[in-house]
Every structure is written in structure tokens, then in C-alpha cells.
């Protein structure tokens, strides 16, 4: 490995109505962001179960980024109320078992916020790059 830069694998769960459209906007605006993120489009960030996040870490994700509509803007009115509950709980639980904080991140990004999306992905990728490979992944590979 040596001086080779660590390229993290990041999984994104983007809401169809806001964040995914925001990513679309970032794309057509030709904003640059690292290609480390793999995006899964979901109909609502509220449909992302903690199971999916844990499974992603198990399968080798170094970071998981959830993108949803701002509170009050949910296409399904209050789906993201559940997103924040679940993710805040999961973030704190992962902290308790000793996983570095920040590997799971939730950000509200609207369809108009292309630049915010690009910036979030840039920041998140840099953060995970700093943290290094996820220890959960290392265990999974050793097994």
C-alpha cells in the first residue's frame, strides 16, 4: 500500500424527491465530487431501515450517507421524522460499541441544493478517508 491514498467505499441512500434530485442538479451543474460514493435511490429516507445501514457496514462500506428532504418538506409529509429518530439512535448505538463517530451521517439536502450535495459528499469522503477503513469491514473480511 505505502503512500497510496486510501479510497473509501461510501454508500449513499438518497431520497427520490429531494437529495437524489439535488444530486441530479449537481450533475447537470457540472459540480465535482469524489466518485467514492455509490448511491441507492430510495423513495423516502424514512424507508431506510437500520438493517440496511448495518448490512452496508457488514458488506464493506466505510461510511454511510443518508440524504433526505428538510423537515417539513417530506413528499410523504412526515417520513423524515422517522429517519432522524432511527438514525440518531443508530449513531449513538454505534458510538457505544466503539465505532468511530461520523461513519454514519444524515444530511437534509433539497432538490435545489446541488452545491450543498457536492460539498457534503466532498466533506464526508474526506472525513472517511481520514478515519481509514471501517473496523467492522476488517472483521468481516477476516472471518
Amino acid at each position, binding site marked *: 500500500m505505502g503512500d497510496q491514498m486510501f479510497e473509501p467505499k461510501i454508500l449513499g441512500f438518497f431520497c427520490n424527491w429531494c437529495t437524489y434530485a439535488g444530486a441530479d442538479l449537481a450533475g447537470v451543474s457540472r459540480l465535482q465530487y469524489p466518485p467514492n460514493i455509490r448511491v441507492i435511490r430510495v423513495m423516502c429516507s424514512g424507508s431506510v431501515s437500520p438493517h440496511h445501514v448495518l448490512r452496508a457496514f457488514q458488506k464493506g462500506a466505510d461510511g454511510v450517507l443518508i440524504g433526505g428532504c428538510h423537515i417539513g418538506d417530506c413528499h410523504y409529509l412526515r417520513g423524515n*421524522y422517522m429517519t432522524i429518530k432511527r438514525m440518531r*439512535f443508530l449513531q449513538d448505538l454505534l458510538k457505544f460499541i466503539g465505532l468511530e463517530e461520523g461513519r454514519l451521517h444524515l*444530511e437534509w439536502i433539497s432538490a435545489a441544493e446541488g452545491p450543498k450535495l457536492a460539498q457534503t459528499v466532498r466533506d464526508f469522503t474526506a*472525513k472517511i478517508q481520514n478515519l481509514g477503513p471501517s473496523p467492522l469491514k476488517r472483521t468481516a473480511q477476516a472471518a
Partner: protein
Amino acid sequence: MQKLRDKVRKLLADGKVAGYIGYKMVEAHPLPYFFTKDRLTEVDEAIVAPGDARYPLDKLLLQVAARYPKDAFAIQVRGCDERGLIELYKWGQLDPDQVVLVGVACPQEQADYCECPGPFPAVIDYGEKCQPVAQSKRVARVESLAGTDAFKEWLAHFGRCVKCYGCRDVCPMCFCKECSLEHPDLMSTGLVPPDTIFQLVRAIHMAGRCIDCGLCEETCPADIPLRVLYKKANALVKDLFDYETGSPTAVSPWKVLGEEATLETKPM
């Protein structure tokens, strides 16, 4: 003990309940036992199980109630069993009108061992109220560890798992017909030890649902401190949503979206 037996005998004789789930000495072992009106004399042998002999009576009641949905049943409950029944009512698994409590207060030693937040039920037919334990020392110890040390410790614990599913099978709150621990899309199959996330998946299911009876930990052949994990999950639910598991009135935060979102996203 006499007071408890009299109550059970009366309930059965009056036909208020079709049966009583309690304990009886069988071959010198305190075991769960189903008492009925037809064998009323057996009630003289009904006992309160000693502290270290506990069984998931709630789970037995679930099975009995599913088989005889029209009948009411009495059941011996400790503080934890009662919390379990309340959660089961909330999740639509039992009807409170068909359950009669025969309450047992735990001795102080038991409460201290369990670090139990509520060691007695609302109805007490045996024993004296003792002091609840508000803070868990075991959880506090793990919280005081540095992140990497905690992770190492948990990993060592998880690595001992033999995937017997004992924690799930004994759990009175695990009533699902399909289990995510066995779902091939959510968990790798055919691995021992299982995926590292195995215990975490159970922990997220236990959040706001674990009644802290501790049977999972006592059942676990690998001595995984599951109770610490679930105690923390419950404490988080208390901190984040102000929800006390087993509270008779409060609504579980996982059942409603809520009128407003009170939490903020964490900064990166």
C-alpha cells in the same frame, strides 16, 4: 405464599380465568406450570420461583393466548414480566382484559444483580417492595472506555457467538413470525460466528422494547453481555425520545411519526 395461593385458587374456582401460569416444584426443580380449575388441589403446590430460576412466562402466555383467544389467564409476574405484558399489549399481541396479574416483588439482592429499574409490579401478592437501581454500573463502565477499547471488547464478545438464537428464542418480546436474524438479505447465512452486526440487529429491535429481564444473557452459552447492550439501547430511547419501556401510558416512538421532529441532525 398462602396469600398468593388463595388468590389463584379463588380466580380459578370463580372461573375468572381459565388457567394460571406459575411455578411448581417438579422433580426438585422449580419449573413453569399451568394450573387449571380441574386440578385445583395442585394450587397448594404453586410457588414463587426463587430469584435465580426465572423463565419467560410472558412468552408461554403468548402461546397459550394464541391457542385459546377467548379465555382469560392469570400469570405470575415480576416487575420485568409486567413491563413485558404492557409492551405486548401495546404491540397488539395480548389483550389486557384477558390477563390477570399475580404479582411478585423481587428481593433486593435480585434487583441489585439485575440493576433493575423497577423490581416490583403494580400488584404485589408476595414479597416486599425494594429499592430500584436507577443507573447501571455495567453500562457506565463500557461508556467510560475509549472507543477503540470498547470496540475491541465487543468484537471479542461477538466473536464467541455460536449463533444458537437462544437470546431470541427466550426473549418474551420476540414475537415476530419472520425474523431478520434469519433473513438472507439482511444477514449472512451459514456463518459461525455470525456477522458482526448480528447482536447489533437484535439491539436495534430491543430499543424501547427490551424489558430488561436479562434472560437472554442468562441463556447465552457464550456469556455475551447482551444485557449491557440492550440496557444502553433502552437508555438511548429514554434520552432521545423520553420513552420509558414498559410505561403503561406512553406511546412507543417507533409506532408514531409524531407531531413534530424534535431532533436535529448531527454535524459532520
